[in-house]
């Protein structure tokens, strides 16, 4: 066992260089006031004081409600899909899983641009509705457009872990449940769903994480007035140049995410997540 330890060292180095050091940098920036530079900066809590503005609370709640809604939609669409995929022959399953990942082969920006073409006021969707004689609907640059974009992009991350959990389940358990007199609903709630909980939790955590820190999709589909935490942070770093405030928001976001994950982990009875 001992000689394996040295094999870990590249990963330790990796984690140190790309996770720990950047995180320390964020902390340093969050608690100082020097703007872009660290040389003439002093300790300060200004960034956190600024965050008490009720406005940023609105941004937080908007981000969380968008994140939660996206996660729930992904779960309700993704779970049945993962479930039906497991019903197929194993070889077909491989192909089906491959198909669900196809969107991920295409760049995220391109996929989002495609949504712009579909959802915009004179886009595909509205021309289709026009043909049916239904008035034009304005979806582009609203929360609905953002949610559609997010769900479409993150759905595979929900389907894959759920499918993995479900396909690991021993089919004889289900047969046993039926033999013992369970009906279809009972068999699902008591056996199938229970076995898929680790996958569901994994999927929920990944989708929620990505949805809450997303900034490209909300920017492109929601416009500048649909500000989420990701946009707020991006703005502070890229255009405003107030890295201290940006770092403080990132730090709070990181803490909230950690709290959310540890809460979700507690739900899992076997602690397999």
């Amino acid at each position, binding site marked *: 066992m001992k000689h394996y330890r040295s094999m870990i060292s590249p990963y330790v180095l990796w984690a140190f260089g790309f996770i720990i050091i950047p995180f320390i940098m964020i902390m340093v920036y969050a608690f100082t006031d020097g703007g872009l530079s660290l040389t003439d900066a002093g300790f300060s809590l200004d960034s956190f004081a600024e965050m008490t503005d009720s406005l940023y609370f609105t941004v937080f709640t908007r981000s969380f409600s968008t994140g939660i809604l996206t996660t729930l939609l992904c779960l309700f669409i993704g779970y049945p899909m993962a479930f039906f995929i497991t019903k197929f022959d194993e070889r077909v399953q491989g192909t089906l899983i491959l198909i669900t990942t196809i969107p991920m082969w295409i760049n995220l920006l391109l996929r989002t641009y495609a949504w712009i073409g579909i959802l915009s*006021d004179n886009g595909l969707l509205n021309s289709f509705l026009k043909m049916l004689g239904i008035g034009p609907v304005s979806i582009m640059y609203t929360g609905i457009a953002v949610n559609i974009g997010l769900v479409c992009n993150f759905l595979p991350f929900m389907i894959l872990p759920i499918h993995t959990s479900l396909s690991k389940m021993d089919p004889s358990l289900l047969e046993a449940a039926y033999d013992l007199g369970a009906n279809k609903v009972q068999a699902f709630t008591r056996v199938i769903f229970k076995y898929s909980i680790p996958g569901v939790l994994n999927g929920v955590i990944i989708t929620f994480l990505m949805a809450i820190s997303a900034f490209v999709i909300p920017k492109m589909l929601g*416009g*500048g007035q649909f*500000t989420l935490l990701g946009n*707020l942070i991006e703005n502070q*770093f*890229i*255009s405003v140049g107030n890295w201290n405030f940006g770092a403080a928001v990132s730090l709070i976001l990181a803490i909230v995410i950690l709290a959310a994950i540890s809460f979700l982990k507690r739900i899992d009875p076997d602690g397999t997540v």
Partner: protein
Amino acid sequence: MKKIISIVLILTMAFSLVLTGCTKKEDEKKKLRIFNAGEYIDKSLLTEFEKAYGCEIIYETFDSNESMYTKIRSGETYDILVPSDYMIERLIKEDYLAEIDWEQIPNKKYLQEHLLGQDYDPEDKYCVPYYYGSVGILYNKKVIDKEDLADGWELLRNTKYAGNIYMYDSERDSFMIACKALGYSMNTIKEKEIKKAYKWLVKQRDTMDPVYVTDDVIDNMISGNKSLAVVYSGDGALIISENDDMDFFEPEQGTNLWTDCMVMTKDCKNQELAMEFMNFMCDPDNAYLNTQYIGYSSAVKPAFEMIRDDDYKGIKAFVPRIHFDKDEVFRYQTNKTRKIYSKLWTKVKAY
């Protein structure tokens, strides 16, 4: 099997050695690192320059002056930048730019004179003008009443057109609109005036439900998704050339006149090559090709006039208003002022 693998491995290693040898030779080729705004050059000109001067151009793009500044502040180095007026002033003040030797840019004689000697660089020490323009309102002639145009910037708060409007997601241009509508200077540093401008923008946001967009305004207005939009004159010209229903005007309350210039940084190692490039871009024929591609108003007079009288004939947006006393140029802001503005702009958008 093992043998084959080892042979393949040895071959790849040997091959990569040969390759590194090659790249070393390439390194001796002169390099020019250019940092320009997106969609702001005809790239075939770059290839042509590379061929003519036996150099290699490393070309990168940014999406706003501010993001350019952040990138160079975080340690990236470039030879040539193409920022706007106020950002040039900031770069000059922070000692980032190298002086230009006009002797090496004989094509200076083709530049439009009103673009030289501006307040941000009164002695023309640093800037070679590239493109210029104004900010105005693009409107759909079929939807907007002609009489309403007299309201100038207040047209953007006319509730008749609520929900039918794109604002440009730029802190300085948005505050420019509010300041001009209220009759202030767009470079105001008086906190009272800034607060009032902020209230103007908040009221507009609440009553008009605008969408804050950036370059996507071009596609959206070409397909006529909304009837009003704040645009740069060059974008306006492009949109009008694609969609006849649209027209452009610069409000009487005054607007922002901007100039984008090529500047040379202090990091530039091969200044002669950099100036050779600037001269190349000021050549009337090259500028003509470039302008045809970009669609903005060229600083090179013959190129500008040729396109004005031909490709963009009759399109007002291609000929920005000059010498109008209410129009201004953005000036440098101190850190303190910038903070006030950016905080308020974040508040306007993130309600």
